[in-house]
Structure formats: structure tokens, C-alpha cells
């Protein structure tokens, strides 16, 4: 079980001509990933998804907030003592090409962490080879074929599976999958998503799934939770299916509206929401972060910042219905997602 409370990250861009510019990448994000659970983060480019994933995986420090792993607050531990905890959280990179060392065979790639594991657990060396094959079989590839090969000899899907297998060598509790399928061929995407789901179910591994394509979040598990990030802030959160079917925040709605419609199979949603402007770098804070782009923003939005799950506007129907929370003064359900032709 991993929980994060108030995770804040501010990048200081040094050397910039504008002097030390502060880029708030995360603004007090709370989340929890349970054993075997599935939590997805969606958001536009630059919304802070990757940063969050890296913080959770212990690859990046944060400026405020607390991460608690198995009940142990990480801020109380020294850097050294933290290591074993973070080892239980493994990051799966977006790019399976760069995630594997091109100069090492798959066998070598898997062997190193397994050795470490064997040493920790006092297992014999022979265990390593067996385990490598076992893990590869678990992620659905033929160890005999894959082990002696170099990454360039494998397809993208196979590579991503190897990456997952490598993450599994540490018997992780949580896998952080950052855009794990966006660089994989369409025909193979579902395979990886199914694998992650399968791992959740079989091994009880929690998955923190990061994507800008909400549709994929469904496939990690319909029992999952979805967080919508916008400029470092969670603007909406709830059960995945619930948010997809009943998004409340206009930003979530624009994200969902942006999903292309498969004409011929689907019709566009009746109330597609299109943001008024494009995202801009270095926008000033103050008020609702989305106000400038929001088609429904009012003066209040410009000046006051809505807080997740607390501020319901006049149109609020159910502030926290089914655990769904949002940060908006004017929440309203809109049917934005495409509807299947047959339905």
C-alpha cells in the first residue's frame, strides 16, 4: 500500500534567460495505490504525470508532501534506508527502445537484478536462470527465443514485455507504468494492457497507470480509480468507469471529447467540450487553473481556486457521489464520449 499526500514538486529552471523560473509540476497531489489496485492518472502534456510517476518510483525528490509505503513515511528515513522501500515500486518506461541497454542481451539484463535478489534472499545462483525464464514466460514470451538476444532483435511489444519482466524481478508491490503502451503498435497495445491486468490479478501487483489516452485506462481494470491531472493539480477523481461515463469537470470533459470518433462504429457525444484556447507555458496562477480555457468559466473561476471534493457549485448534483470528487465551481455532467452506432 502506497499513499501520497500533498505531493508538491516545483522545478527551478536555472540558466534560463528569464532567470530562475519556477515551474510547479505538482501542486499537492493526494493518492493511494492499494495492493492489486489500479490507479490511473490522465492529463495533457505537461500536466505532471511523469513527474508524479518518478516521485512514486523514488527517482525524483519532491518538495512537499509525504509518501507512505507500507505505513512507513519516507521522509523519516535516510536516503539509504528508503532504497529497499522504493525498490518495491518499479517504473515501466514509455519508450521500450531506450529502456533496454542495447549492448546487453536480455539474459544479461535480467540476470543483474535477479542476482541481487538471489543474494538478498540467500538463493543459489542457479535460481537466477530459472527465474529469468519463469518471468519471461509470465509476461508471455518465449524465454528460449528472447534470452540470448539483444534488444534490437525484438519487436516493440516484446521489448515492453521484457521491461515488465525486468520490473518483476524485484517482486514489486506496485508497477508505475508511464505511457507504457503509447509507443507500441496499435495491434499489440491491448496485449500489454491485458498483461498488466493479469499481473494485478495473479500477483496482486498494484498498477499506477499514467496515460493521456483515457481509453487505455479502462483496460487496466474496470475496478480501478482515475485521477485527472491538470497543471499539477488533480481536478477530478473517482472510479474509472464512473468518470468515463459521467465526467463532471470541464477539463475531464474536454479530454474525453478529444478522443477521436470511429465514424462508422460510433457517433460523437452530444455535448463535446472544446477548450477555448491552447495550453500555454508559464501561465499565471490564481483562480481555477483551467479558467482561461474553460468554455464555462465565470468570474468566480478567475479569482477563486476550487479545491478537490469540497467546493460544489450551484449546479452540483452529488459532490462526492460514489467517491467521485472534482474541483470545479460549475460541475455538470455532459455526454461527451462517443456512442456506439449499435447502441
Amino acid at each position, binding site marked *: 500500500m502506497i499513499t501520497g499526500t500533498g505531493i508538491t514538486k516545483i522545478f527551478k529552471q536555472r540558466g534560463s534567460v528569464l532567470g530562475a523560473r519556477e515551474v510547479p509540476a505538482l501542486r499537492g497531489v493526494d493518492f493511494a495505490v492499494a495492493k492489486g489496485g489500479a490507479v490511473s492518472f490522465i492529463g495533457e502534456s505537461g500536466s505532471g504525470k511523469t513527474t508524479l510517476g518518478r516521485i512514486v518510483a523514488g527517482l525524483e525528490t519532491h518538495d512537499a508532501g509525504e509518501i507512505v509505503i507500507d505505513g512507513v513515511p519516507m521522509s523519516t528515513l535516510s536516503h539509504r534506508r528508503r532504497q529497499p522501500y522504493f525498490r518495491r515500486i518499479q517504473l515501466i518506461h514509455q519508450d521500450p527502445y531506450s*529502456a533496454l541497454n542495447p*549492448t546487453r542481451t536480455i*539474459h544479461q539484463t535480467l540476470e*543483474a*537484478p535477479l542476482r*541481487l535478489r538471489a543474494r538478498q534472499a540467500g538463493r543459489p545462483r542457479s535460481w537466477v536462470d530459472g527465474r529469468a525464464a519463469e518471468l519471461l514466460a509470465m509476461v508471455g514470451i518465449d524465454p*528460449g527465443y528472447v534470452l*540470448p538476444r539483444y534488444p*534490437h532483435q525484438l519487436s516493440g511489444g516484446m521489448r515492453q514485455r521484457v521491461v515488465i519482466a525486468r520490473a518483476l524481478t524485484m517482486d514489486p508491490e506496485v508497477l508505475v507504468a508511464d505511457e507504457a503502451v503509447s509507443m507500441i503498435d496499435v495491434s499489440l497495445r491491448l496485449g500489454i494492457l491485458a498483461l498488466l491486468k493479469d499481473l494485478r490479478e495473479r500477483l496482486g501487483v498494484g498498477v499506477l497507470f499514467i496515460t493521456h489516452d483515457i481509453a487505455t485506462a479502462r483496460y487496466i481494470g474496470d475496478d480501478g480509480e482515475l485521477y485527472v491531472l491538470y497543471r499539477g493539480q488533480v481536478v477530478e477523481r473517482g472510479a474509472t468507469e464512473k468518470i468515463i461515463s459521467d465526467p463532471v469537470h470541464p477539463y475531464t470533459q474536454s479530454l474525453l471529447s478529444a478522443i477521436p470518433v470511429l465514424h462508422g462504429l460510433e457517433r460523437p457525444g452530444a455535448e463535446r467540450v472544446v477548450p477555448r484556447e491552447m495550453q500555454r507555458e508559464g501561465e499565471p496562477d490564481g483562480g481555477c487553473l483551467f479558467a482561461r480555457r474553460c468554455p464555462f468559466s465565470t468570474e468566480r473561476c478567475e479569482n477563486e481556486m476550487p479545491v478537490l471534493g469540497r467546493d460544489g457549485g450551484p449546479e452540483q448534483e452529488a459532490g462526492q457521489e460514489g467517491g467521485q470528487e472534482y474541483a470545479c465551481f460549475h460541475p455538470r455532467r455532459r455526454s461527451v464520449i462517443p456512442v456506439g452506432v449499435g447502441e
Partner: protein
Amino acid sequence: MTVIVNPEGAISPGAVPAGTTRATLRRNFWRGVWRVLRRKPSRMAGVGIVVLFAVIGVAGPLLYPAQLPRDDNALYAPPSLAHPFGTDFEGTDVLALVVTGARYVLLTGLATAVITVALGTLIGLVAGFHRGRWDTLLMRLTDMNLAIPGLPLLLVLSTVWKFESPLEMGLVLGVLGWGGIARAVRSQTLSLRERGFIEAARGLGLPTRHIIGRELLPSMAPYIAMNMLIAVTGAVYAQVGLFFLGVLPFESNNWGVMLNLAVFNGGALTTPAALPYLLAPLIAILLLTLGIVLIVDAMDEIFNPRLREE
């Protein structure tokens, strides 16, 4: 196609494939190297030249008596069958001098290369990997190293320090010359560091030793190997040049001394008589450079598994 001829499914799942043991990998590596070299005849020539020099460096002095024979009546003799490159000022065979003098030159070159590359790589790696304060400190040091003009400093140093053994000489040349490599290795490290596989290794909690030794270094191997070879030529060049200028004290015979004596004692630039004496070490230097240049050409392919196996 691939070395490991292994059509899909030929090996039953679960079995540990034979092709993964270290020995096999090593064998495959060398086979790959061989393949890369064979792709162009020039590379084979390069290897041939470098091997030849290596043999000369190791076994050269054994080919001749400790006291090289002199022919008192054949000072600066022209090339002949007995003396392919003629003789020197006291009638010693020039070829014998080149052969016996190679060890000093090559040893210095090698020592320099090892020290430059080791220092440069280490500093670059540490700076790039740890970033932060270490990086700043080490990079200032590197800037300094780069800003201090090597040859002039060597001239100044040569009056204080007696470079009595080739290793000492190599040490000095190496200590003066690591800056460029350090800077390049650092920037490579910085960019590799952002690559997923390094981050993954860190996430897996693999020891830094492993990350640097097994993940970072092999990725930089072609670069490092290339620099190493280039450092050898650079060191030979600098060292022979210093001997040629006459600013380096010398005790034993080597190519630079030959150049110096040929030009300043024999008048090789003035009359053709001592020309073979001058040309022999020059040709040796050129040949060594050529060999190394030809091999450098293959480095990328040798260390990149994809190019190697193609």
C-alpha cells in the same frame, strides 16, 4: 543474420539457452569483431599494422643483441640489403634502431592512453553521474586542464622533471591530456543517464558499480576505445616531438631521438645522406598512425551489437 542461429521456438521454453553463458558471449563478441573487420580490407590492414607494432614493441629488442652492432666504416651508409634503411652516425643499422626503439615509444603511448582514458572516463563519469556539486567541481578542474596549454607546459616541466621511464613520461602526458575525454564522457553520461535503461537500473536498486561498469561504460565503449587509440597516436606524436625538439632528456634509443640526431647531427634536411635515418622513424610513425586510423573506423561497428551482427 544473427550469430545465435535460433529460429523461433527451436528451444523449448524454460530451458536455459546455451547461448547466454559468458564464454559464449565472449566468443560471439570476437566473432562479431572478426566479421566487422573483414567487411573492409582496410581494417584488416590496420589490424595487421597495429599487431605488427605490438609484436615489435614486445619482442623487438630480443631480435638484436643488447649492444647493437656498429660498422665503423659505414657511417650514414645508404640503404642496402644488409641495412634496408642505411646506418646512423656510428654505423648502427637504422632498422634495428627503429625496432628496438619502438618499445619505449609504444609503451609511453600505451601508458598515456591508459591514463588519459582512465582519468578522463572516471572524472567524466563521476561528474555526469553524480551531477550537482561534484559535477561543478570536476568540470572546473576539467576546464582548467583544458585551458593549460599542454605542449608549453611540457616544455616547462621537462626542465623540472626527468621523464626517466616511458611510464613516467606516459603519466605526465596522461595527466595533462584527460580533459577532452572527461568533458565528452560527461556529456555522454548526462545524456545516457536520461535514457530509460540507466534509470531502470537505478530503480532496480542495482549498485552504482554495476550501473557504471555494466550499463554506462559499455555504451560508451566505442567512444572510449576510439579515444584510447587516438590517445596512443597523440602521445607518440607529443613524445617524439619533444625528443625531436631536444627538450626531453633521453637515456635510451627511441624514434624521437633518431629524428633529432638525423636532423641536427646528420643534416638530414640538408643532404640526402642522412635522409633514410630521418625517414625510417617518420615512416614508423606514419604507419602506426595509419594503422590506428584504419582501426578507429571500425570501432562503432565493433561495439554496437546491431552493426556488429549485421
